[in-house]
């Protein structure tokens, strides 16, 4: 099986605070992967840095064996629902259409083909009837469905989703999971930041247990064990975090590189 995502020694600092250390990872294609770990473990940071939204301090990322820039249209991102202003004057259709922007580029106009793709994507998540509504007039679950429609319209091979199950109703949750399984059936790889330990073993083929460093990664049946969970959730690495923050504040790395 070929590899969808590979990271080597991925290290990320955010606002001068180090969040992720030396992540080595190889995610095979066609898997549903859950990222779990306590608050502040760096789950969102991991997918943001892999997507090139946050700068990487060290290490590298490869997508389908190449740097991200080469395969950027094959990778889709679903941000947290709270990251946008839902009063923004766009309709449900406008947001779904944004999924086609990647392949369209910056200047080509949105045409019939794009509208068809977006309509089909909205239909798939049951939001086509709401196409003309402003996005603020939707429930949390409906907003999440719109974000998913945008991702479907992107038609990627690898997706990163940031907490898609937060604040959604039970019907939306099961609709999302059905959708993810359909994606997997088509050979797509989906990496999901997840917060609910109860559903995690049920939803995902593989789990990534994260707490500032990669505690474990593997098939769910192998890594979803009491021992590994305890290691992941058993307190943050307080000393590591403090020392590293201190080091970043004093720009130790710079001092180090200046030393002959």
């Amino acid at each position, binding site marked *: 099986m070929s590899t969808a995502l590979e990271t080597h020694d991925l290290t990320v600092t955010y606002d001068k605070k180090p969040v992720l250390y030396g992540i080595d990872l190889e995610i095979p294609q066609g898997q549903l992967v859950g990222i779990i770990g306590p608050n502040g473990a760096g789950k969102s940071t991991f997918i943001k840095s892999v997507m090139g939204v946050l700068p990487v301090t060290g290490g590298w990322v490869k997508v389908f064996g190449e740097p991200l820039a080469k395969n950027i249209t094959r990778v889709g*991102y679903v941000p947290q629902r709270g990251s946008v202003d839902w009063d*923004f*004057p*766009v309709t449900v259709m406008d947001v779904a259409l*944004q999924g086609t*922007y*990647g392949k369209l580029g910056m200047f080509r106009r949105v045409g019939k083909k794009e509208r068809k793709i977006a309509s089909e994507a909205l239909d798939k998540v049951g939001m086509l009837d709401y196409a003309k509504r*402003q996005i603020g007039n939707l429930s949390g679950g409906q907003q999440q469905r719109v974000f998913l429609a945008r991702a479907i319209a992107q038609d990627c091979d690898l997706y990163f989703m940031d907490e898609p199950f937060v604040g959604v109703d039970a019907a939306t949750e099961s609709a999302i999971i059905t959708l993810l399984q359909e994606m997997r059936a088509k050979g797509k790889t989906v990496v999901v930041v997840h917060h609910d330990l109860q559903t995690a073993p049920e939803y995902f083929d593989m789990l990534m247990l994260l707490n500032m460093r990669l505690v474990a990664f593997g098939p769910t049946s192998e890594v979803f064990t009491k021992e590994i969970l305890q290691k992941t959730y058993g307190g943050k690495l307080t000393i590591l975090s403090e020392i590293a923050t201190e080091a970043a504040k004093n720009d130790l790395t710079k001092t180090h590189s200046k030393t002959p």
Partner: protein
Amino acid sequence: MMFDLIALTLIQKALLAATLLGVMCGVLGTFVVVRRISLVGDAVSHSILPGIVLGFVVSSALGMNRNPWVIFTFATLVGLLSMLTVRQILATTRLKNDAALGIVLSGFFGIGLFLKRSLRPYMESAGGLNDFLFGNLATIAEADLKAIFIVAILIVITVSLLLRPFILISFDVLFAKTLGYPVKLLNLVFYSLLTVTIVVSVQAVGVVLVSAMLIIPASSAFLLTDRKYHMMWIAMGFGAFSGLGGCLIANSFDDVNVPNGATMTLTAAGIFLISYFYAPNHGILAKWSKQRKLERVVRNENALKQLYKSLGDDAALEKSVTLSEFASMNRFSEKEALSRLQSLVKHEYLTVSGKLYKLTSSGLTRAMQLVRNHRLWELYLTNQADYPSDHVHDDAELIEHVLDEATVKQIEAELGFPSEDPHGQPIPKPQPSREHA
């Protein structure tokens, strides 16, 4: 040029300039409002003062008195420098946006005031320099108008070319980055256009009021529509109207010198007040009338429910009431009771023959729905949300009027299609009739 500017009178020139400025500010203002960076306009308009002064000095040094292109160039560069300074402060200190903007706004403006005085000997003439502080269109020069015209065309073309990416980075910048869009470059272009717009507008409305022309027409448009494209057209129209109207008003005072900036801002503010009150969905009056309508519905439906209960649940359709019976069962005055009954007749919940009022079948259905909604909601709160059963009545009293049938079905399913509420009262099963709002 497309037409001969020399042939225009001073007033016509002023009107044309004001309209063009209104259009430009309207277009970019919509982005400023939806990106929630309204303070940036103020910061830039104040910060460009040193650039304007330098523009005057360099114009003089080049042997041209007050060349608009030289002035615009220096002002734009200084404006961009001020934005970079804000960014630098944010990146290197713990200060937040408001403080950084405040420091840069006042700091740059202070430098400008200082230079304005100290560099006076190096300017051939400082005539018109004060216009940049307070705004003046009456003396607008031929060259200024040409410059404004060209800048306006440039801005409209650039924005229409980059409209889709501009909207995307305003709505969801993370997503735009993951598509590989050059977000930094797009932002640089956007802030450059914004700075240029502010620079050319300043001489018309002055440093202080330029942000009004950016923010007010766009805000009025935001209350009127939910589409970004429409918002831009409306804001352009409002901007042009404010510019033109304000200029005409200022010119209509013969004996006193009324500043254009003030009248343009006031015109824009007048439009804002109108949309604040009358906007069809987001206006105050629309919200108020929606609220009143709901209150009326609640009052009517409560009376209907009362009637249904007092007629006895089963044979309610056979029986009838008189006005005074209805008044006493609701503890209404006769006048209140009459208006309630008439309203229920109007909604076809009741029929009236002589002095007797009878429930119609749709009235019966609605009444049963209300009672069902009330009891279902009480049950839901007690069983699913663990409310104590003596706390649920007041909440149900409100919810019963707004529960739609889809939600009712969901609740019924979740509760296992119950037949009694927490107080042991039966939950009626109304026959579906026509939809009720």
